[in-house]
C-alpha cells in the first residue's frame, strides 16, 4: 500500500525541516530588526562614544581620547575622569545601599504578606486585591504621593509622625525615605510571585507534617523555604536589577541634581543630557552596564538560576 520508498523518506523529511527553519527565521526577523535597532546599535554607539570627547548636540565633532572619560588628569592636575569623581562613587554606594536594603525588606515583607494571604480567613479575597494596588500605581505617581506625605508642613509622615522633619532635604535621610517608597511600591510584586510559588506546593505534604507533629515554624524553614527557593531566586534577580537601575523615584522626589548623588542612572543622565557630555555620559553608562552584567553573572552562577 505505501508507495514511499525507504530512501525517499529522510530526504523529504529534511526538506520539511529546512523549510520550517526558513519560516522560523522569517517569523523572527521583525523582532530581531527591532532588537538591533533599539538595543544593539544604540549599545554599540554608547560604547563607541565612551572613547571620545564629544558633545551631545554635535556628535560628529569628536576627538578620540581612549579611556580618558574614565580616568584622565590634566597637566595642571585637574581630574577629569568620572572614576576620579567622588560624586560618582557616592552614587554607586547609595545605589548599592538602596538595592540591598530595599530588596531585602521587600523579600521579607513579601514573604509575610504571601503567607498571610495563602492561609484561609474571612477577608482573604479583599487583602489579595488590596495587594495589587501599590503595584498598579505608576512609579512617578507613588513618588509624588510619598513626596507629599514626607512634606514637613503638610505631610502625614513628615509633619504628622515626625513633627516637621524635612526627610528629603538631607541626603543621608532621603535615601532611607526613598527605600521606604520602593519597598511600599514593589513588596506587592514580591508577594504575588511568592504567593504563586506557595500555591504550587502540594498540600498533602503539609498534612503529613501536621500528623508527624512538626510545628508551623519547622514546616516553614524545612519545607516551604527550600521548595520556594527557585521562584524566590528569580524574583530576587529581577528585583535587584530593577533596583540597580533606579531613577524615577529619586528624580521625582529630589530633582535631577540631587538624584545624581543617589543613583548611578541619574549621575549618568546628568552627564549625558543635562551637561551634554556625550562621551563622558556614555562612559558612565558603560560602567553601569558592566556593573549590572557582573551582578547578573554572579547571581546566575552562584545560585544556579535556571531560566527555562
Amino acid at each position, binding site marked *: 500500500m505505501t508507495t514511499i520508498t525507504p530512501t525517499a523518506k529522510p530526504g523529504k523529511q529534511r526538506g520539511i525541516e529546512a523549510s520550517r527553519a526558513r519560516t522560523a527565521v522569517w517569523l523572527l526577523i521583525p523582532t530581531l530588526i527591532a532588537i538591533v535597532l533599539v538595543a544593539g546599535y544604540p549599545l554599540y554607539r554608547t560604547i563607541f562614544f565612551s572613547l571620545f570627547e564629544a558633545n551631545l548636540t554635535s556628535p560628529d565633532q569628536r576627538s578620540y581620547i581612549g579611556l580618558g572619560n574614565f580616568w584622565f588628569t590634566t597637566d595642571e592636575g585637574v581630574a577629569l575622569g568620572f572614576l576620579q569623581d567622588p560624586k560618582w562613587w557616592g552614587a554607586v554606594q547609595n545605589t548599592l545601599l538602596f538595592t540591598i536594603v530595599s530588596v531585602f525588606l521587600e523579600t521579607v515583607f513579601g514573604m509575610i504578606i504571601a503567607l498571610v494571604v495563602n492561609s484561609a480567613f474571612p477577608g482573604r479575597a479583599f487583602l489579595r486585591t488590596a495587594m495589587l*494596588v501599590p503595584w498598579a500605581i*505608576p512609579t512617578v505617581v507613588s513618588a509624588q504621593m510619598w513626596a507629599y506625605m514626607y512634606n514637613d508642613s*503638610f505631610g502625614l509622615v513628615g509633619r504628622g509622625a515626625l513633627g516637621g522633619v524635612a526627610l528629603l532635604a538631607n541626603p543621608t535621610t532621603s535615601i532611607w525615605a526613598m527605600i521606604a517608597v520602593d519597598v511600599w511600591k514593589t513588596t506587592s510584586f514580591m508577594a504575588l510571585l511568592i504567593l504563586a510559588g506557595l500555591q504550587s506546593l502540594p498540600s498533602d505534604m503539609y498534612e503529613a507534617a501536621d500528623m508527624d507533629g512538626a510545628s508551623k515554624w519547622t514546616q516553614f524553614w524545612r519545607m516551604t523555604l527550600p521548595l520556594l527557593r527557585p521562584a524566590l531566586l528569580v524574583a530576587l534577580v529581577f528585583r535587584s536589577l530593577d533596583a540597580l537601575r533606579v531613577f524615577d523615584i529619586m528624580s521625582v522626589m529630589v530633582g535631577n541634581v540631587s538624584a545624581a548623588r543617589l543613583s548611578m542612572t541619574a549621575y549618568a543622565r546628568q552627564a549625558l543630557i543635562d551637561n551634554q557630555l556625550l562621551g563622558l555620559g556614555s562612559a558612565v553608562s558603560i560602567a553601569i*552596564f558592566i556593573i549590572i552584567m557582573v551582578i547578573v553573572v554572579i547571581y546566575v552562577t552562584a545560585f544556579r538560576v535556571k531560566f527555562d
Partner: protein
Amino acid sequence: MYLKRTNPTLYYLQRLGFYLLVVVIALYLLVPFLWAVLTSFRRAGDLFLQPLQFMAAPSTWGNYADVFANPNFRLGLLYSLITAVGAVFIALLFGSFAAYALGRFKFKFKSAVLYIVLAVSVFPQIAVLGGLYTLINTLQLYNNPAGLILSYLIFTIPFTVWVLTSFVRDIPGELEEAALVDGASPLQTLFRVLFPVMMPALVTTGLLAFINAWNEYLFALTFTSTKRTVPVVIANYSGATQFDQPWGQIMAASIVVTVPLIILVLVFQRNIVSGLTAGAVKG
C-alpha cells in the same frame, strides 16, 4: 484545631495576633493611596489642617476641574495613550511571530535567540540612552511620539516574546498540525488557529506591556520637550508660582492616571498573576 480545645486562651491570642497583622498589612498597602485620594478632594487652604480636621473638611471637585483645564495634562494623556498603545501593538505583533517561531519550530541558534531576548530584558536602559538619543535625532523623531514608541520597544518586545513563547509551548500541537494538513501557511495557522487560542495570553501580555509603557519615565523625560507623556507632566506639575506646589492638583492628576490602571488590574487579576509568573518566574 487541637489548640482550641487544649489551650483556648493561647488559641484566641494567636487568632487576635493574626487579625492584627492582617489589619496592619491592609493599612500599610492602602493608606498612602487613600490619603492621596482624600487630598485630591480637598481645597488648597485645607492642607494645613490637622489630619482629623482634614478628613472632615468639605470635599470639592475643584482640583479635578483645574487638572483637566490644564492643556499640558490633557495633551499628556493623549501622548501617553498614543505611545503606549503604539508600542504595545507593535510588540504584540512582532512578539507573537517570534513566540510562534520559538515555541513551535526547531532551528539552529534557537536558544541563542532566546538568551539574546532575555539579555535585552535585563538591560539597564541608561546603557542605550546616549546611543538612542543620537539615533532618534538622526531619524528626526525627537519630541515625537513615534520616537518614544520606537524606544519603548526595548522593553516591550523582549517581555512579549518571552511570555508569549511560554504560552505557545503550552498549546497542544494537534491544533496546528491539523491546520498544516489542511494546507494552511504558517501565517494563516498563526492568525486563524493560534491567535484565537492565545487571546487570553495576548490580552494579559498586552496589558502588562501597556502598564510598563504607560509608566515609563526616563525615555519620555529625555526624548521629548513639549509633547510629554503623563508621568513627565505629573513629575513636573507646577502651580501658579514656582514655589507653590499644588498638592491637591498633583494628587488629582495622579488619581486620574492611576484609577484606570487599578480597575484594569483588578478586572484581570487572575490573568495578571499568571502573566507575571510566566514572565518572571520562568524567566
